């Protein structure tokens, strides 16, 4: 029996637009264990947010979804909307990038909590309130602020409220989509430490979607690098950061400007249009190592080291 909390295979999400289908996620497979943190990293428009939304089943109507997503063994795609609603927010929770737009300005924090809890469990208001106080206290927010409205909190506090709210149901899986991008660097570090503590204490799995490789290095066990709707590399964080296989991963790591940077490096060209992506390897037009085969044949998803996968024809040259 598998220990996986989440297992996606052959996942495809295609958005319908006037110009044609946008192939935002195009054949992605992975699995996550209990209390694992998986970072999904990529640039704007690579499909990483769509991936998160597809797990929760919150894509716009008319979107074409193929493949399977199994959560604790259940195929989420086969569930009826009301069954999915029971899982969403309870077993699988989500925190977004901008906490301000996700809290209703007309409701107090207390209202938010009571509504969330009572949507999933048949408990009294009093009990719901008690649980809210505890969850907020664990995030360092005092009871005296329960009756305040979202605008009365700072950005970091709002994100802590969002985290408290997603945790009050004790989820098995938390999907965090750029949870710290709108926050300052010190508050970002605070939030990342909170997430790390929670994961350990509650044995929760965390899917962390981000464009920031520094955050992945600090917070994740595994990392999947996404480019133009596909995973190009997957592995343990140390393997991927220290011995990257795919040229895109190498280039991305090289292009980070960090405190020890000695030179500037950038990737030539632009990410492709996902309505009409390049054939075969999608990175080939920007790849410094591309050869004829990269333009004609789709690279296989190969395990190059134990637990370290990549999709590159020349992967073994980079071992």
């Amino acid at each position, binding site marked *: 029996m598998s220990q996986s909390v989440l297992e996606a295979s052959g996942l495809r999400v295609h958005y319908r637009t006037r110009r044609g289908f946008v192939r935002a996620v195009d054949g992605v497979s992975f699995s996550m264990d209990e209390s694992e943190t998986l970072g999904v990293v990529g640039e704007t428009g690579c499909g990483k947010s769509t991936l998160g939304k597809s797990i929760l089943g919150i894509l716009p109507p008319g979107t074409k979804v193929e493949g399977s997503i199994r959560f604790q063994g259940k195929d989420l795609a086969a569930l009826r909307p009301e069954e999915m609603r029971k899982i969403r927010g309870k077993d699988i929770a989500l925190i977004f990038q901008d906490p301000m737009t996700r809290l209703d300005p007309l409701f107090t924090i207390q209202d938010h909590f009571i509504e969330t809890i009572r949507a999933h469990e048949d408990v009294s208001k009093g009990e719901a309130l008690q649980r809210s106080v505890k969850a907020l206290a664990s995030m360092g927010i005092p009871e005296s602020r329960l009756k305040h409205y979202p605008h009365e909190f700072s950005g970091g506090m709002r994100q802590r409220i969002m985290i408290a709210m997603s945790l009050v149901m004790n989820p098995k899986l938390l999907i965090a989509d750029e949870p710290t991008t709108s926050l300052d660097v*010190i508050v970002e570090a605070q939030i990342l*430490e909170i997430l790390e503590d929670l994961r350990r204490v509650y044995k929760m799995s965390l899917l962390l979607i981000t464009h*920031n490789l520094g955050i992945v*290095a600090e917070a994740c066990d595994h990392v999947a690098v996404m480019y133009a709707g596909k995973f190009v590399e997957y592995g343990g964080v140390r393997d991927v950061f220290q011995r990257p296989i795919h040229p895109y991963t190498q280039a991305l790591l090289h*292009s980070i*400007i960090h*405190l020890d940077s000695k030179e*500037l490096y950038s990737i030539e060209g632009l990410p492709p249009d996902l309505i009409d992506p390049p054939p075969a390897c999608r990175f080939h037009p920007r790849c410094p190592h591309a050869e004829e085969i990269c333009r004609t044949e789709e690279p296989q998803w190969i395990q190059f080291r134990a637990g370290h996968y990549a999709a590159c024809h020349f992967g073994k040259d980079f071992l």
Partner: protein
Amino acid sequence: MDPVPRRSLRGLSFREGLPVTDDILEVRDLVKHFPVKSTGLPDFLGGHRLVVHAVDGISFSLRRGEIFGLVGESGCGKTTAGRTVLRLLEPTAGTIRFDGMDITHLKEAKLRPLRKRMQIIFQDPHAALNPAMTIGQSIADPLIIHEGASETEAKASALDIMNEVGLAPAEQLFAKYPGDLSGGQKQRAVIARAMILKPELIVADEPVAMLDMSIRSRVLEVILDLKRRYGHTYLFITHDLATAKFICDRIGIMYLGRIVEIGAAKNIYADPKHPYTKALLEAIPVPDPMRRGRKVLPQGEVPDAVYPPAGCRFHPRCPAVLPTCGWEGRDFVEFLEQRWISPEVAAAESALGPLEHWEVSGLVARRPRRADDPGNLADKIRVILEEVKSPMTEAIDVVEIDRNDVVIRFRPPAKLEPVHIEGRIVECLLY
């Protein structure tokens, strides 16, 4: 005879015999406050206007040809500072000298000819270009406005500068609209528009923050390359310490309207002195999984700039804080609030509450006495303060019963002065 380049002439003092100054921009005690709202009462009834202390007395100067970084988190006042030195915002107080001239209160008509010598690159390239103008029109427009160039001349110059910033093929992109370009291309267009007048001073306000990591470097390279060729001076505004380290000669670290540390970038990065600078450097995520570790982070978040903390503005969050750093009444109430997050403690100390009954004013926190107060309330507070001993509690002068109030009174803070130390200026009582 060799022609004397114009630029080096500008570097000379305009009055013979005076020492040559090489500062193109000199900012002294600059203040910019934004009014927010009044307290509701007219002034004579004790009401007063509230202001955001966006920039609250900063001084720095830019030497010709250098890149000076103004670095800090959102809301620290760096963008306001950048716009105020260009007189895009009216300064509240202080002086701004551009190339030796006091421009603090210069009238718009006199300012205009100077405008072409100082330009700005905005953060959001999607918002900085007029969607109804072609890229070429946007870039050429400053020449037509400031130098009365003809359309043909302006177009020729625009094509030149477009090639220089890497907007190629320039002829083709000239006729495109901003909507047809990628983010990186738009930012190059914004840079080209700022450069076309060959300005001497450029304020670059987070020029790469909105771009993807893989193209940030390319835009920074364009900026560095142009600087090498034309010797522009930059005020580079950023929240990203890593970029600042790479690109800046000197930096000033801003926190809540003040510069807390300023000096040569290499000195500050090698050995940061101000606890806030240290905290910022510590907090940056390092893209190396082998260097993971628990961080020492400051508490809480940046406070409201309408009510900046007394003394050093960083003191409520500072890991190295002293009793003399600026503790005041509200810090005591904040302390109670944090302490009472634990419901058990809150219940045990309910005699001191509720929190809403505490009023603060400057160095004092007070709560009206109630009939059901225990007789030894002041003693109770003293016991708690003794038990939790911290720089904050040590700053408390007296806990007393003053007529109908329980009063906590703090000692006034030590005076904070900029200190020169190891190649930088720091504003911190530790030094």
